[in-house]
């Protein structure tokens, strides 16, 4: 099953052939295996994607190839043949010759992978010099400019002297791609190269990477957690789960006919694919119907089918009064926020309009999604509604009450009824407080009940978010990302709020966990009549959770409509771009 057959026949020799690779991490309790017997074959010029959730061993496999394993990591068995060389037998010194020169590497997070204290030019030039591509100051500099221009930095010659913090995330990733391809390697390892970026930026960068590697003839080993993205970008797909390959083969085949239960769950949970499935259902275009996909979830007991969840949610919300008749929970009118930023020039302060006359309303018990890329102002709007930032002008009405003048006691009461859940489940929980205290803290702050009643409420909340009771004495670092986000949701629900502001609440989670949390949110909404304001950059998620969508761009709402309208007949060019950028949207799935 794990064999990747070469369709071009036996004439071509594989560029990379991994056989029974084993990687372990040395700990005090012995060696913990991270990769347990991985086989894969990559032909010259081909693209292969490894898909899996965090902890599946996909990144470890990639790092093992060029021996970039962190401290306690060791290859404990198997072989890695690259271009006729056995890489596992290479010394550190010999490996330096392979890295950069023969195998390029593009890391995951552009924010942390450039040294902040050296200029961009310096970091590109040292790569060129180390790999012996050019010598002499001028030649190296010219080559660096050329490399960066190829990677899509048009004004590279002017920006060489700038530092990483003066570049946007997308620009930094272009720099890293430029570095990775600077010596025209035969193989490029791209480890989640765009998962930290906005969808539209992601699309542009991946398109560019594809063109570049095709022109140079570089084979690409693409690591990602996004099945849709993988299928769109790679001919061959390898699905990893707990250190093993569970399924491998041509991308389209796997997507249309997943055999392994884990792959089936992934296919069912991937929001990018799910939203497309819903879309194809409502658009009623039979040629696009993915009927083959639909049997997948039924064969797996544990799976969360997003479409089913979304339909269920829709049914529940429509049981109440129809959407139009519900009273508005949040009404935002002409909300504007202007920041003064210190200018680079001669003491000139310039103004940044983060939110420009934003108006929308959210009906009670419904979900409105605020969608946009980073910098579009969506989080600023959320912060103002939560009264964490003061608006420059405009008004916010919560249940008909203007919240702007509230101070002290009434403000505290407002906070009680409106709770936030933030993006990073690692950063938003205090590592020194146990789960029970974390969830119970709002009750304490607002002096609700006594010790025993608070404890009861905490247990009730744990039950509501489907966490075991014994977690009450555990600490955040003992929990997984999904569990932490459940804790954050439980904390938000502690005071029985009417409104929950979810600021990128599922963006940092693996797809399967993401699907579970989305399902949980939908269930809770039906049960508790909650109103959600859902802030996200990911349109794919919106489809399964939101009733209405407001698309934001540069501080303005450019399009506001019901979810179906936005997906089926987007009016604005920008919305269309966002929709097209959803990974997997471009796959033509002929059945």
């Amino acid at each position, binding site marked *: 099953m794990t064999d990747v057959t070469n369709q071009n026949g036996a004439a071509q020799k594989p560029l990379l052939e991994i056989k029974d690779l084993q990687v372990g991490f040395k700990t005090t309790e012995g060696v913990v295996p991270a990769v347990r017997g991985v086989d894969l074959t990559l032909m010259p010029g081909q693209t292969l994607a490894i898909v899996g959730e965090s902890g599946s061993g996909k990144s470890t496999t990639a790092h093992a190839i*060029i021996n*970039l394993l*962190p*401290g306690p990591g060791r290859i404990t068995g198997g072989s890695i043949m690259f271009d006729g060389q056995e890489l596992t037998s290479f010394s*550190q010194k010999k490996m*330096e*010759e*392979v*890295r*950069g*020169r023969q195998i390029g*590497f593009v*890391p*995951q*997070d552009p924010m*942390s*992978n*450039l*040294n*902040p*204290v*050296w*200029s961009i030019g310096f970091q590109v030039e*040292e*790569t060129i010099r*180390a*790999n012996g591509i050019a010598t002499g100051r001028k030649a190296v500099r010219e080559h660096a400019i050329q490399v960066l221009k190829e990677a899509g930095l048009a004004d590279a010659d002017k920006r060489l002297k700038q*530092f990483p*913090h003066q570049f946007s995330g997308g620009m930094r990733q272009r720099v*890293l791609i430029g*570095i*990775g391809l600077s*010596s025209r390697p035969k193989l490029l390892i791209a480890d989640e190269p765009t998962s930290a970026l906005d969808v539209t930026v992601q699309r542009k960068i991946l398109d560019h990477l594809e063109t570049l590697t095709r022109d140079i003839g570089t084979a690409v080993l693409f690591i990602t957690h996004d099945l849709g993205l993988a299928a769109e970008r790679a001919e061959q797909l390898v699905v990893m789960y707990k250190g093993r390959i569970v399924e491998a083969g041509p991308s389209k085949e796997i997507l249309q006919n997943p055999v392994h239960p884990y792959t089936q769950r992934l296919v069912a949970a991937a929001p990018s694919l799910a939203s497309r499935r819903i879309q194809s259902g409502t658009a009623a275009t039979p040629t696009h119907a993915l009927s083959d996909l639909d049997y997948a979830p039924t064969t797996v007991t544990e799976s969360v089918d997003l479409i089913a969840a979304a339909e269920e949610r829709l049914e529940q919300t429509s049981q109440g009064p129809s959407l139009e008749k519900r009273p508005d929970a949040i009404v935002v009118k002409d909300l504007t926020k202007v920041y003064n930023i*210190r200018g*680079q020039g*001669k*003491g000139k302060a310039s103004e940044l309009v983060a939110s420009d006359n934003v108006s929308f309303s959210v009906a009670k018990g419904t979900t409105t999604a605020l969608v946009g890329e980073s910098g579009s102002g969506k989080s600023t709007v959320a912060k103002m509604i939560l009264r964490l930032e003061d608006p420059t002008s405009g008004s916010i009405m919560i249940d008909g009450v203007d919240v702007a003048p509230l101070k002290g006691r009434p403000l505290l009461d407002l906070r009680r009824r409106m709770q936030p859940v933030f993006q990073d489940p690692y950063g938003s929980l205090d590592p020194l407080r146990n789960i029970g205290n974390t969830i119970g803290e709002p009750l304490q702050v607002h002096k609700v009940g006594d010790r025993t009643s608070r404890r009861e409420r905490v247990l009730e909340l744990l039950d509501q978010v489907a966490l075991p009771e014994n977690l009450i004495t555990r600490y955040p670092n003992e929990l997984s990302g999904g569990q932490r986000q459940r804790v954050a949701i439980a904390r938000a629900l502690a005071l029985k709020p009417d409104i929950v502001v979810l600021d990128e609440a599922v963006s940092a989670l693996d797809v399967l966990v993401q699907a579970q949390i989305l399902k949980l949110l939908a269930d809770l909404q039906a049960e508790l009549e909650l109103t959600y304001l859902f802030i996200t950059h990911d349109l794919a998620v919106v489809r399964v959770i939101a009733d209405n969508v407001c698309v934001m761009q540069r501080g303005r709402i450019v399009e506001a409509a019901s979810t179906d309208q936005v997906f089926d007949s987007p009016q604005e060019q920008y919305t269309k771009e966002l929709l097209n950028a959803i990974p997997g949207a471009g796959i033509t799935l002929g059945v």
Partner: protein
Amino acid sequence: MAGYIFRRLLQALPVLVGTTFLIYFMVFAMPGDPLLALFGDKTPNPAVLERLREQYHLDQPFIVQYFLYLGGIFRGDFGTSFSGEPVTEILARTFPVTIRLALMALFIEFVLGVLIGLISGLRKGKLFDASALVISLILISLPIFVIAFVAQFIFGIQLGWARTTVSAGAPIQDLILPAFVLASITFAQIVRLTRSSVIETQSLDFVRTAYGKGLSRRRIIPVHILRNSLIPVVTYAATDFGVLLVGATVTEGIFNVPGVGRTLYQAIIRGEGPTVVSFVTVMVLIYLVVNLVVDLLYGLLDPRIRYVK
């Protein structure tokens, strides 16, 4: 840049006024009559006493004394000591010696501390690292005068490598041993700080990427690990300069170095307001300048906090 330095120096003014006032007040509040103490067991002539009192403004209320002194400072007059020598002359005689000693100590602690800390961090858990940690812990736990006496005994008396006391004029070769002793405490701190900073930097993503780019370890260590690790160390070394000046008082006493420490100690015992305050003022000034230099250095090491305007 010039504007930034000017602003920083302006900020130093209130700090200077505040510290001089505090020190002046504390010397004033010390019990006993400084003039009577000067005469020891002898009973002084009341007329002489009266004249001295007038000369040193000791008959005035505290606040008047303070402003007379402050006014003097702005005219470049730091007053005179009880021995009749202008304080400016004492400053000019003693400060170069102490600054030489402190700079030598700073050099030793920084170069050796960073080097040993770097090796320790790169070989975490190995024998070198373990020994460096134990030795630095011993140095931190021991009071400086114990280290001074032990060093005097071993290197001065047993081995005869260095003089136990510093000769007149404080030549550099005589100051080597006191400088090592003075550096010892902060040296241990710098070893530990550099070590932990190197360990942290080593695990950062951009270091892995640097390996991925095909750079050799020999290049990555100085360029990508050491430079980034130095940022917290440099910050520490700045605040640490004050510790050096304090440590100098003890070290100078033991090694008989004719520097600030010894003179200041004697002036405090005698309750000589102007001398004590002048010394402290100059020390504060040095401290502020060192901090400014370090802040500028910090911007050089880390472009993210380079000062605009």
